């Protein structure tokens, strides 16, 4: 994947998490980084009078912050820095990603969660609702993982919904570019109302899972080493908690069926998973646009 990865940066721990994870993905896949700091544009300011002096100060500060972030990127990774003005963080990032044809957008998740876990803030939520590029959520503490650490394995959470093709396609290209193995995962207990007896869920879930996984495996190329696992539990949370993870592993999930085509949206299952995940999660849109990660893209190799 010699494409470009957009890192949404803020001078916070969440921002440092995003830079660290972005660097690791760039090292593993040979991509370049675009560190983007989004400043609010003036159009949204309807109460406070504009102040060019303050705006200049803010811009200088933003450049300083970005320089600090750039210093943390490993020397082997090509990187550029951008200050972008937009209505919101999400809007700025998706606009940059569209312009440069980025393969991924990496953001840190909001503060306040437990170490190593995700908590989704309003900015991440907005991004998940609006991006047509896969979004990588860096859990709190990602900055403590070494950037040169490899991506040993990619776990793909498979469902039966539309979007599985895009999901598998992304998984395959990520696996090829990073040299990772693929693990297909199905969670049981999906989609049955909570009032249904748990024994029934288990049975229904197990049959459902084996079927789904078999079909998914058939879709993946034989070149990619693939294993299959079914996680069982009374709830999504307990199911996820029982799974073992390799250090540096990534999880791919498809976006919700409620999302419009080519837009992301985190479904309730993915949201529940996210709270329990100790590893970075990548949310893939239902259908991919022209920018397919790993595919040869026109920006490739520029500069």
């Amino acid at each position: 994947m010699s494409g470009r990865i957009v890192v949404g940066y803020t001078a916070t721990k969440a921002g440092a998490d995003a830079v660290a994870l972005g660097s690791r993905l760039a090292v593993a896949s040979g991509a370049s980084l675009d560190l983007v700091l989004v400043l609010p544009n003036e159009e949204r300011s309807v109460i406070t009078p504009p102040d060019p002096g303050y705006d200049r100060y803010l811009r200088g500060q933003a450049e300083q912050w970005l320089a600090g972030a750039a210093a943390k990127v490993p020397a082997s990774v090509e990187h550029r820095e951008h200050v972008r003005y937009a209505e919101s963080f999400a809007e700025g990032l998706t606009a940059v990603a569209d312009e440069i044809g980025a393969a991924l957008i990496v953001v840190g998740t909001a503060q306040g969660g437990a170490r190593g876990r995700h908590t989704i803030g309003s900015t991440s939520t907005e991004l998940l609702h609006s991006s047509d590029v896969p979004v990588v959520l860096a859990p709190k503490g990602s900055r403590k993982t070494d950037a040169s650490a490899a991506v040993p394995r990619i776990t793909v959470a498979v469902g039966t919904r539309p979007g599985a093709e895009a999901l598998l396609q992304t998984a395959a290209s990520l696996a090829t570019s990073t040299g990772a193995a693929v693990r297909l995962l199905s969670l049981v207990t999906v989609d049955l109302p909570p009032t249904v007896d748990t024994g029934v869920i288990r049975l229904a879930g197990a049959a459902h899972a084996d079927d789904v996984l078999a079909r998914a495996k058939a879709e993946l190329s034989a070149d990619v080493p693939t294993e299959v696992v079914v996680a069982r539990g009374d709830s999504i949370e307990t199911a996820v908690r029982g799974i073992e993870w390799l250090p540096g592993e990534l999880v791919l999930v498809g976006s919700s069926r409620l999302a419009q085509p080519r837009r992301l949206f985190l479904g309730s299952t993915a949201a529940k998973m996210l709270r329990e995940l100790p590893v970075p999660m990548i949310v893939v849109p239902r259908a991919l646009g022209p920018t397919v990660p790993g595919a040869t893209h026109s920006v490739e190799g520029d500069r």
Partner: protein
Amino acid sequence: MSGHEGAALAPTTDQVEGGLSKKGLSAGTVGLIGAVVIGISCIAPAYTLTAALGPTVSAVGFQVPAIILVGFIPMLLVAFGYRELNRSMPDSGTSFTWASRAFGPWIGWMAGWGLIAATIIVLSNLAGIAVEFLFLLIDQVANTQGAIADLAFDPFINVAVCLLFVLGATFVSYRDMQTTQKLQYILVSFQVAVLLIFAIAAFVHVANGSAFDASPVELSWFNPFAVGSLSAVVAGLSLSIFIFWGWDVTLTMNEETKNPEKTPGRAATLTVLTIVSLYLLISVGLLSFAGTGTKDLGLGNEDIQSNVFFYLSGPILGPFAFLVSLAVLTSSASSLQSTFVSPARTLLAMGHYGALPERFAKVSPRFFTPGFATIVSAVVASVFYAVMRFASEDVLQDTILTLGMMICFYYGITAFACVWYFRRQLWDSARNVFFMLLFPLVGGIILLYLFVQTLIDSMDPGYGSGSNIGGLGLVFILGIAIIAIGIAIMIWQAVTRPAFFRGETLSKDAPASLRRRVA
């Protein structure tokens, strides 16, 4: 990467001042209407009038309209100087930065201090007014006949709710939460419409003979010489400085407007015409409805002076009085936010240039606001309000009078800074003679005179609300204390952080004449 990196992206490594990043913004986003809306919501006419009308009547009686008209003159003159300085050195430190560049660090520091003190005082007054109207609004909607409205005058409830207001405004400012443009337009239109209805209703009462103390409108109301005493005019003027305070933002919006040649001038004119007409209409309307008597609803009644709309909206508008409460509340609330920006940005600039600890220069990495400076302003405003609520018999009136004095102080310095900073360019053109020399100089002299005279008059224990400590008027003590504390902190900073005071971070300057360079 030529094909994909559009002009909108400015890589920081090689293009700091180019393209979109010139000022870092999508230039030219503010149109004429947008500029007027920002101007009106900064002035907050509903709030300003309810706070300033009473004290002005107590100073000049029926001649309020005259004082409003005259008071606009020094404001306008100084605003011209302000505009020149802003064009030459746009900086978030405004008065602080400009005075430092013109007169050096000591005077610059005090100008910054004056600005911060004035904005912090107005923050506490704004929140105080908002509290009274919140209770009044609840009272009107719940129809409890004043039982709830009176709660606002319990000092403990009052201070507690006021602190909540400040806390809310701090939160909103810290996170830079903005309403949508549409909502802001609606709020401003609503405010103006309610004020118009309010004034018209007052005239209708006068015509129907149902007014409280119908007083026929006389031409002498517009004649400043009819006031009689000079110190009354001075007191009235320093109040009318306050009612136009904030108007200058429309003049200083340059680069941001869609048409920098014409929009700022037109916006400022349109704003000021709207504001002056509203002020005149309402002051004349309320004067002829209630007179200047000292009993009941008379505008001379000390008990109602600090918040006249609060007492007059019911008798004038009857069941629709809640509209006035709503207008004042929304006006104070949005003004609270735009006012918060001002001390925070000045504190930030002072921190940046080393005139205050570096912490003040910190920008919140998530919300891009001067976080630390905002919180400090809020804490100081809250403490100030709480202390004043217990120390003064009429906190609102005394804070407004002190405020007028502080505005005269730092605006006066700013006006002189303009003349002195541009001293080598004054004779470059006839335009410069007027806009850099005459206008700011005359404006500055008027403000300086107002400042000194108010200081002298306020020593009288009967000045303002009549609160005094040891026979000295509270307003005088406040004014002197604010300046003395400023000097003390300044000396302390000069000892601990001498670089700024040696002129190392912000040097004195006077741009050379452009004419000589050409010749």
